[in-house]
């Protein structure tokens, strides 16, 4: 300004000097004057030239001045914008509008045509456009997410420096994206990456130019300021977000864990309560915020003195403390809390404050109480049951004995307490049901077994259940007495079955005697014939030999009948073995053939081929068949009764073999259908009334079933019994 003023002063001076010259010229001679004029003209011309030069210089300076002025004004505007932005940054909470503003400012600064801001996704590390100006959707879609190593912006991110592309048409690096650039309508572009203070990549500000363009150093410097501002803002927003989230997490965590935190400034008495602490104390954060010792008011009177002493002692000794006590709400609700705190010191070792956590343990205390009561109850039950009760873990180690089980261990000379944690079968290698125990543990099935345990000289029944922890619990009963009773019952039943069998056979005596007598008669007669043939004057040796052969055959025949009878008469010794049901049916049919013939009964046997074997006591099964056949015979032997057909059939039905005996006899009166299986029920004269009841007992003891149904058209009777096949026998 000063310079400008000087020049204008000089210019003002010029006309003034000219007028002085004019005044002098009027007084001098013409030549001299002319000379003077010439000189003066030369002078003036020189001055003029100088002046013209000066004017040009001045114009140039003025232009320069204007330029500088503009530049300064622009810079000032930029600075003002920056200042405004940074001020806003301090106040603003929303990231998006601010980024948009920065983008606009940048576009203006660089006199760009479009631009966008991308943020670096913390998870995927990809750049995502969050603010833009001037782009169409196809561009936004194309660059919606950019990986670090693709595209030019990715490269800028990777190289951590600004990338400027003057003209996308000529820059080889931009070749892959020329099409989209053409579509978006830009030629020049610059990418400025944004980094946090810890050099974490945050995002990118890009500006785009319709014409090939290279931003100036000056622009770039200001650009950097904006970038820095944006980075700062993004970073701060992220930090705020993290903090906010952490606070939410903490509050949520405190709420869920019923854990509150607090701080108590020792010198000022100022307190900090987390939201959860208010909940725990049942207080409204807006109304009450008790410090110490007011807080004591809220503590259960029985606990108050103890809390006070412990707290004050801890503060005096500047030590950590832990307290469990009860909080009483104004409505009388009692909460159990556990309070842990420790002192915080400054660097000089002066106690500043106590910080602590207060945990609401009410639910836990109540749950513990319930569990304790449940345990007490279970213990009481376990102790009161008269069974031996013990538990094993999944490795087979003893976990528990009730008092009876413990007593049993002592009887065996073992200390029950010492057995806890020891593997059952290692401690008791003679354990008779180890396989079942292992099965319960491995297959998690319930098994009930009966075993004789020699060291105790007792039969025991074990009910073993898999427990939820993979182990088992077992109830054990002494069943020796029951076993004895059962054994006696079994013996009695066997005895009864035998008696019934003998009685049944008694009914058959005549027929059976005939069966035996027939071959005996033939033998004797053949013997006589033989003697006569030999004692003739001309002995017929051939015929005599034939007679003897017949005698032998009949002898065998007789012995087979006897064998069969003896088989049925002998006492069954509960010897179950695999046998063919058809063989047993045939044996009985052979034995009863005579009796059936005598009664004019036609027998038809339909025995299925290839039946699986059954596990059975042959004698007992034959007894059942015999009984059913004789019942049928009985039903058909009324005088003049016709027809007299007996059908016996065997077949497989799923896992069972079913034997059917059908007759065409009188049938069973409806009112008797229920009672035929009852002992002592009989419709026969001289019958014991045991046949069917024994038969039923036998069949059921074999895991089968015996039942009856009326025959065809209500005539006759059908009896059926089933036996599990060998594979299905248990």
């Amino acid at each position, binding site marked *: 300004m000063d310079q400008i003023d000087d020049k204008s002063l000089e210019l003002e001076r010029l006309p003034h000097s000219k007028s002085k010259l004019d005044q002098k010229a009027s007084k001098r001679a013409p030549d001299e004057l002319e000379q003077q004029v010439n000189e003066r003209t030369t002078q003036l011309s020189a001055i003029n030239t100088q002046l013209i030069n000066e004017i040009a210089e001045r114009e140039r300076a003025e232009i320069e001045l204007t330029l500088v002025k503009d530049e300064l004004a622009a810079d000032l505007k930029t600075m003002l914008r920056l200042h405004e932005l940074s001020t806003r940054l301090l106040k603003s909470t929303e990231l998006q509008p601010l980024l948009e503003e920065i983008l606009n400012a940048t576009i203006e600064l660089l006199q760009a045509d479009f631009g966008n801001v991308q943020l670096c996704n913390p998870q995927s590390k990809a750049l995502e456009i969050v603010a833009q100006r001037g782009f169409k959707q196809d561009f936004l879609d194309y660059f919606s997410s950019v990986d670090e190593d693709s595209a030019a912006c990715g490269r800028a991110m990777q190289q951590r420096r600004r990338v400027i592309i003057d003209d996308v048409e000529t820059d080889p690096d931009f070749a892959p994206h020329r099409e989209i650039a053409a579509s978006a309508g830009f030629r020049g572009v610059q990418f400025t990456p944004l980094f946090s203070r810890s050099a974490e990549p945050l995002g990118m500000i890009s500006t785009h130019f319709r014409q090939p363009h290279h931003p100036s150093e000056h622009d770039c410097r200001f650009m950097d300021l904006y970038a820095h501002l944006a980075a700062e803002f993004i970073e701060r927003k992220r930090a705020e977000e993290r903090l906010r989230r952490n606070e939410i997490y903490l509050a949520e965590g405190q709420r869920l864990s019923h854990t509150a935190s607090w701080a108590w400034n020792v010198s000022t008495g100022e307190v900090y309560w987390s939201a959860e602490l208010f909940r725990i104390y049942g207080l409204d954060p807006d109304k009450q915020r008790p410090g110490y010792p007011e807080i004591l008011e809220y503590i259960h009177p029985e606990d108050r003195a103890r809390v006070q002493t412990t707290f004050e002692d801890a503060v005096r000794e500047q030590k950590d403390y832990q307290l469990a006590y009860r909080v009483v709400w104004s409505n009388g609700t009692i909460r159990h809390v556990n309070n842990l705190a420790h002192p915080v010191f400054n660097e000089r070792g002066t106690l500043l404050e106590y910080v602590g956590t207060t945990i609401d343990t009410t639910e836990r205390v109540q749950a513990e109480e319930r569990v304790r009561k449940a345990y007490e109850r279970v213990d009481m039950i376990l102790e009161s049951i008269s069974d031996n009760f013990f538990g094993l873990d999944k490795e087979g180690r003893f976990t528990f004995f009730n008092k009876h089980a413990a007593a049993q261990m002592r009887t065996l000379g073992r200390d029950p307490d010492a057995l806890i944690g020891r593997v059952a079968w290692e401690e008791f290698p003679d354990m008779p049901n180890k396989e079942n125990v292992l099965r319960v543990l491995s297959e998690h099935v319930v098994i009930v077994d009966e075993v004789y345990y020699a060291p105790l000289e007792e039969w025991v029944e074990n009910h073993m259940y898999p427990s939820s922890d993979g182990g088992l619990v077992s109830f054990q009963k002494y069943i020796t007495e029951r076993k004895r009773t059962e054994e006696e019952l079994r013996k009695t039943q066997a005895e009864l079955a035998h008696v019934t069998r003998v009685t049944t056979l008694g009914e058959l005596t*005549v027929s059976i*005697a*005939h069966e035996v*007598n*027939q*071959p*005996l*008669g*033939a*033998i*004797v*007669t*053949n013997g*006589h*014939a033989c*003697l*006569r*043939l030999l004692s*003739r004057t001309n002995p*017929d040796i051939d*015929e005599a030999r*034939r*007679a003897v052969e*017949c005698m032998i*055959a*009949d002898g065998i*025949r007789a012995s087979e009948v006897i064998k069969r009878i003896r088989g049925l008469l002998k006492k069954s010794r509960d010897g179950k073995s695999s046998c063919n049901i058809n063989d047993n049916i045939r044996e009985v049919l052979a034995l009863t053939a005579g009796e059936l*013939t*005598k009664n*004019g009964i036609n027998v038809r046997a339909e025995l299925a081929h290839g039946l699986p074997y059954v596990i059975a006591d042959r004698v007992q099964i034959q007894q059942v068949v015999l009984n059913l056949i004789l019942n049928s015979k009985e039903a058909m032997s009324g005088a003049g009764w016709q027809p007299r057909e007996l059908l016996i059939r065997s077949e497989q039905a799923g896992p069972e073999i079913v034997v059917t005996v059908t007759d065409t006899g009188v049938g069973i009166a409806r009112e008797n259908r229920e009672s035929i299986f009852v002992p002592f029920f009989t419709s026969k004269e001289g019958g014991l009334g045991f046949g069917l009841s024994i038969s039923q007992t036998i069949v059921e003891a074999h895991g089968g079933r015996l039942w009856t149904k009326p025959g065809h058209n209500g005539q006759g009777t059908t009896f059926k019994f089933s036996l599990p096949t060998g594979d299905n026998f248990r």
Partner: protein
Amino acid sequence: MTAAKIPSQVVFVIDDDASMRDAVSRLLNAVGLTVQTFASAREFLAGRLPDVPGCAVLDVRLPGLSGLDLQREMVERGIHIPVIFITGHGDIPMSVQAMKAGAVEFLTKPFRDQDLLDAVRSGIQLDRQGRKERAELAELRDGLRQLTPREREVMSLVVAGLLNKQIALRLGTSEKTIKIHRSHVMQKMRADSLADLVRMSQKLGIETT
């Protein structure tokens, strides 16, 4: 037994038990008797029996028609073959019934061979006797059929022991006429004497009045 040679006598063995049947057959063969065997009563009844003296050895318990049933059936059909029962289990009521029905013998298995052979022999003898008696009776009946009603009247009064004179008075005719009738009767009946005629009339079951 062969079809070509008609035996002088035959034993029918009816038993469902093959070995018993064979044994009995063998025993009878051994003493030179001809035997014909049957497995059931029906088979026997359906068979062609040779018209020679014989007897039947029957098992009491036969399938279908029993031994006792067969015996009854034979009587009904006029088959006069004597029956010998053999049984595996002789029970008294059954043997009584059999004997009442005219059985020759009731043997319980096992039996002594001689007992069976004796029974068979007496059975055959009985049959032979029976056959002879039946033949005689047939002859008498034949004679009786040739008599006129008056001659029958005369014959019944003669065998009742009346004299000719008494008969003539009873019938209202002359003694001489009676004499002629009487001689016709004697002639037609081929009677040798009065005693002979009386015996004949007894056999024929003519009632005396």
